[in-house]
């Protein structure tokens, strides 16, 4: 965990988030402060410590693999930005 070398524009692209130049500069500065703050974690001796993913003592919960009632197409599409023929209309993916 060396000094934070955060490339905000590259990370924003990974996150599918378009940022203005002004936003890039602001987040660069603010998040560098936050990353410097979390550097403190490096000091902690975690040898032999297992990671905690969540605090629930429940693992591998199964149910019967049977179909259950779900939304009708009309319900599923109720919030769609665009729809046609009981389908979501999306932008062209393949040129």
């Amino acid at each position: 965990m060396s000094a934070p070398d955060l490339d905000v524009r590259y990370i924003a692209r990974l996150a599918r988030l378009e940022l203005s130049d002004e936003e890039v500069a602001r987040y660069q500065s603010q998040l560098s402060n936050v990353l410097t703050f979390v550097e403190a974690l490096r000091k902690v001796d975690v040898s032999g410590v297992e990671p905690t993913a969540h605090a629930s003592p429940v693992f591998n919960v199964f149910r019967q693999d049977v179909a259950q009632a779900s939304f009708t197409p009309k319900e599923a599409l109720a919030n769609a930005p665009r729809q046609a023929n009981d389908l979501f209309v999306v932008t062209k993916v393949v040129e």
Partner: protein
Amino acid sequence: MDTADLPFLTVTELQRRLRARELTPREVVDTLAARIEAVDPAIHAYLSTDLDQARRDADAADVSLPLGGVPIAIKDVISVAGQPCGCASHILDGYVAPYDATCIARLRAAGAIPFGRLNMDEFAMGSSTENSSKGATLNPWDTTRVPGGSSGGSAASVAARTAFASLGTDTGGSIRQPAALCGVVGLKPSYGRISRYGLVAFASSLDQVGPFTKTVEDAARLLGVMSGLDPHDSTTLDAPVPDYAALLTGDIKGLKLGLPKEYFISGIDPQVEAAVRAAVDHYTKLGAEIVEVSLPHTEYAVAVYYIVATAEASANLARFDGVRYGHRARDTSGLLDFYGKTRAEGFGPEVKRRIILGTYVLSSGYHDAYYLQAQKVRTLIRKDFEDAFQTVDALICPTSPVPAFKLGEHTQNPLAMYLQDIFTIAANLAGVCGVSLPCGFAQVDGKDLPIGLQLLGPSFDEARLLQIAHAYEQTTDWHTRRPS
């Protein structure tokens, strides 16, 4: 009948009067509607209400049910079928929830009426409700100050007596901190106690739903109704749900309360510290034994949180892509442009900041150094609590290091805002339960600002936690005071 005092009743007293036929559920909704109309414009706790539906629900209400005829206001992150669920974000403008969250379905089955949407920090990211895309909520005790957050609307509505009770969510303190700043009771149940099905996920390993109320007894009633196993949320535990309200005996003689020395640090407001220390003395008089304990990894909790929570958020918020619901950018060219613009237009500054941080700590080359390291330190934080609860029944400490701060005071400095949650965050990382209840007032600029006492208990020991909180509340009168 005279309904002048109706908004000030507890849920418990409201139900007594409903069952005695001293008033009708319809009168309750009508009175509450008038109260909201008169008071909420100065507070802005509500984003919307559906009072016509609430009146229909009231006319059909069965007051013999556990919460029969009780209107309950809901944070804008929990799905109520047919009502907006926008997370105070532009990206969900116009979105209407197609189904009830499990906690809502259980409230309805118990006769409660979910009727209004409460303001919050966008996607529950914040500690002041200033990150709402719909404008800030103001603190009913001093409208130049924040109500806390992220469940600021939930806390402010109960404090302003525009709700009898409300629901919020707590990922790093978002129930307890606003409850403290607004002078009401806020309960964060243990991780796995209440289903999150129908809650819009922020950080899935931390999020919990919980109630805001005027009293501990009311919180116990709502908790009992909402708790338990849900096949739709595999983190819920199949543990018995006690009758929490019936266990509030007022007797806490012989119980041990731990004073975590790491929670009494420099930087804590002197009036807050004095009030919490006075509460500790009060517990001694009630027969509790006070023991100093240590949670040695407390200082790392905020850092762990802002890695774990943002990592999970960056994954959870990937679903907002403009395809199936929510905002969709116009005039885009190609798929990446479509996603990039949709999300740029839909999300506010704090949400973007956290998505970037979370994406970074999960990205190739940084995952082990940040995310995995944080998960390991999280294990040590959990162990601190497990060790402490070997010797004490609950921990006692401040909820927030300061009373309500001014609007705009921390908006330019994200790190300063993150540190507002310094006393609440560890409980989420450990999965334990916690409650904030009023324990005094700070005099600041001629105004009385509420101070919150935080009690933390072992996982799934809400019964004892509430018993301890109730014993304090019933022998003090802080909870009876309300903003003018």
